[in-house]
C-alpha cells in the first residue's frame, strides 16, 4: 500500500485478511447453510519498523480478532500476513513456533494473564525455556533481570520471588511487558494494555511502552477502544467498524482532519477533560448492528446521516487514498476532502 516506501522498513504487511467464525445455531448445526460471523472482513495495512500503529473501534468491531490473527492465536480464513516479506498466515509446527518467538502479545487484564502460582522469575523465564534460549540457568536469570529492569521494575532482584497477588495492577502489567520483552521480539501486539489500570498508573505504563519503542525500535500494534489513549500512543491509526477499516492515516490527521462520518461521530463522542469544551452532538443513529446480518453495501449506511439510496446501500466503498497516507472507505470521501457540501439525506431505515 505504501508505494515508494522502502520495503525493508515494513515489519508486518497485512493483505485482505479475513476471519469468519462459523456459528452453529440450534438445528442449523446439522442442516442448511452455516452462518458466519464476519469478525474481520478484508483488512489491509502495514506496520513499519519502530512504529506504533493504533487500532481503534467499538466493542465487536474486530480489533481484538485482528490482534489475535497477527499473533496466530487464530487461523485466518483468507488473506495473507507478511512478516518481513514472508507469509506467516498458514505456518504450522516449527515454523509457527519460530514466528512466535519474534512476535509477542500483551493482554488487557494483568490479573488474568499472569499465572497466580508462578513467581515473577518463573513467569518471565518461561518463554526462554519454551524457545530454548540461554545456555545455563544463571544466564537466563540474567536475561530475566534485564527484562524486568527494562520494564522499570527496579531493583529487579526484589521482584523475582514475588507472586502476582503481591503486586499492584501497574506492576503486574510491567511483568507482562517484561515477559514479552525477554525474547527480544521484533513485533508486539498490545491488546488494551492500559484499560484496566487507574489513571495515575496508566500514564506510567504508556510512557514505558513508548520508551521501549525508542530504545529497541520495536513496532507495536496498539489495540484500544479509548481514542485519547490511541492518540497518545500511536504514530498512525486505523478506525475499524464491523470488521473493516473505515479510515486510516497519521494519528493527528485522523483526530483533526477525519473524513469518514463514523470517525467523525466517534471522535466527537470522546469526552474531553475541560469544562469549557463544547463538543458536537453525535449525529449517528442506533447502535452497532450484529456482525451476523451485515447490511448490504457500506456497513455504516443504516446509521450514516449522509447515506444515499441506490449507492451506499448497494455498493461497498473501497478504502481509497484521499491524500498522502490518508485512506478512507466512503463514497463521499473525495467530496468531504474537497470541502464540498454533501447533503444529509434520510434513506429508508434497515
Amino acid at each position, binding site marked *: 500500500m505504501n508505494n515508494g516506501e522502502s520495503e525493508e522498513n515494513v515489519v508486518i504487511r497485512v493483505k485482505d485478511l479475513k476471519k469468519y467464525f462459523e456459528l452453529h445455531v440450534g438445528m442449523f448445526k446439522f442442516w442448511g447453510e452455516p452462518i458466519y460471523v464476519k469478525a474481520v472482513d478484508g483488512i489491509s495495512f502495514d506496520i513499519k519498523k519502530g512504529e506504533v500503529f493504533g487500532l481503534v473501534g467499538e466493542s465487536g468491531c474486530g480489533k481484538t480478532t485482528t490482534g489475535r490473527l497477527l499473533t496466530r492465536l487464530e487461523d485466518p480464513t483468507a488473506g495473507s500476513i507478511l512478516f518481513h516479506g514472508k507469509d506467516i498466515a498458514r505456518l504450522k509446527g516449527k515454523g509457527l513456533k519460530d514466528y512466535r518467538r519474534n512476535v509477542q502479545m500483551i493482554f488487557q487484564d494483568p490479573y488474568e494473564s499472569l499465572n497466580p502460582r508462578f513467581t515473577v522469575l518463573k513467569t518471565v523465564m518461561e518463554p526462554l525455556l519454551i524457545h530454548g534460549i540461554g545456555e545455563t540457568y544463571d544466564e537466563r536469570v540474567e536475561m530475566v533481570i534485564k527484562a524486568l529492569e527494562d520494564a522499570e521494575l527496579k531493583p529487579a532482584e526484589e521482584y523475582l520471588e514475588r507472586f502476582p497477588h503481591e503486586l499492584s495492577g501497574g506492576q503486574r502489567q510491567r511483568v507482562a511487558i517484561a515477559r514479552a520483552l525477554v525474547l527480544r521480539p521484533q513485533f508486539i501486539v498490545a491488546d488494551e494494555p492500559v484499560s484496566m489500570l487507574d489513571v*495515575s498508573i496508566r500514564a*506510567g505504563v504508556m510512557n514505558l511502552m513508548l520508551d521501549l519503542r525508542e530504545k529497541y525500535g520495536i513496532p507495536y500494534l496498539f489495540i484500544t477502544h*479509548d481514542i*485519547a489513549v490511541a*492518540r497518545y500512543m500511536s504514530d498512525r491509526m486505523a478506525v475499524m467498524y464491523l470488521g473493516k477499516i473505515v479510515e486510516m492515516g497519521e494519528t493527528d490527521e485522523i483526530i483533526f482532519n477525519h473524513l469518514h462520518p463514523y470517525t467523525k461521530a466517534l471522535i466527537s463522542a470522546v469526552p*474531553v*477533560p475541560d*469544562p469549557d469544551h463544547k463538543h458536537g452532538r453525535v449525529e449517528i443513529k442506533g447502535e452497532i448492528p450484529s456482525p451476523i446480518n451485515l447490511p448490504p453495501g457500506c456497513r455504516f449506511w443504516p446509521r450514516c446521516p449522509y447515506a444515499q439510496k441506490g449507492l451506499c446501500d448497494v455498493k461497498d466503498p473501497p478504502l481509497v487514498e484521499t491524500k498522502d497516507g490518508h485512506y478512507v472507505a466512503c463514497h463521499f470521501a473525495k467530496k468531504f476532502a474537497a470541502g464540498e457540501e454533501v447533503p444529509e439525506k434520510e434513506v429508508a431505515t434497515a
Partner: protein
Amino acid sequence: MAKELLDVRNLSVHYKILAGWVYAVDNVSFKLNRGETMGLVGESGCGKTTTGYGITQLLASNAYIKDGSKVIFDGKDFVEMSTEPSKKFSGYRKIIEYHPEMRKYRWKRISMIFQGAMNAFNPVFKVGDQIIEAILTHEDITEEEARKRVEELYKLVGIPVDRIDNYPHEYSGGMKQRAMIAMALALNPDLIIADEPTTALDVVTQDKILGEMARLQKEKDVAMIIITHDVSVVAEMAHKMAVMYAGHLVETGTTRQIFKETAHPYMEALLKAFPSIKGERKRLKAIPGSPPDLSNPPKGCRFAPRCPYAKDICLEEEPPVVEVAPGHFSKCHFAEELYGELGGEAK
C-alpha cells in the same frame, strides 16, 4: 437561592476485616443543592463507591459508621435514624438492616444507577415487570397505571415501548443502561446516585447516555451524584465536583474551579496523567508509586508519599481543609501557597 438537599458531615465508614480495620472513608463532608450535579472522582479503591452507598446506608455487613458522622437529607439525619451504637466496637454505629423509615427514602427519594447496570437486572424477569415492581412497592397504584408510567419512562429515555416485555438479555448494553435510568426515575426521586454509569459502554453510546442524563436531570430538576474514575465525564456533566484520594476528600469546588484553578497536588497530577484528544500531544506525567493500603494508611497526608511538593509536615500531620476561594476547598498543608501555582488543565 438554591435549596439545600443533602449535607454530608464528617462521614467516616470503616470496614472490619480479620486483620483490623480498612479506613475506606474518613471525614468526608460535602453539600448538594436541589437540581445540582456533583461528580465524585477518584481511582479504584479510593472510597468513592462507599461514600455513595453510605448516603443510602446500603453498606456491607462489616461496615461501621463512626460516631459523629452525619448524612442529612432534606433535614433528616439518616445516620441517627437508621443506625444503632455497635455493641462490639465502641465509637462506631451499625446500620439497622431493613429499617422501615429508611426504606421509605430508598428509591422513592434517592435512587441509584448501579455500577455495571448490565448485571443489575434479574435475568429471569422481564425488564418492564422489574420496573413496575419497583413502582408498586412504593406507591399505592394499580398495575395498569404503573405500566402506563413505564411506557412514559421508556419514551423519555429513548427505548421503543414494545421492548417493555423483553428480557434483559434481549437488550443491548446501552439499552440496559437506559432502562436502568428509567427505573431510577420511576418514582420521581430528589436525588440519583449514579455509580460509574457509563464505564462499560462504548464511546458513542456513552455520549448518548450522558446527553440523555443531562437532559433528564434538567427537565426533572433532580439532583445527581456521578461517581466515576473518568475526570472527562465529570468535566462534561457536573456543576461541582469532589476529588477523593485514599478515603479523604482532597478537593471540592465547582468543576471550573477545580479544573482551571487546581488547588490540590493530587488533582494536578491526575490532570497531567490524563490523555486528551484536544490540544497538542505532550508527554504525560505518571504519578510515582501507587495508592496506599487503606488498612494501614500513612500518617499525615495520605498523598504525601507520592506528592512532588511534600515536606516534612505532610508526613506527620493530617492537613486541614482550607478554603482557597469561596466554595473551593483543598485538604493540603500548602493549599494557599500552591493555589494559583499549580498547572491546571489550562496551563
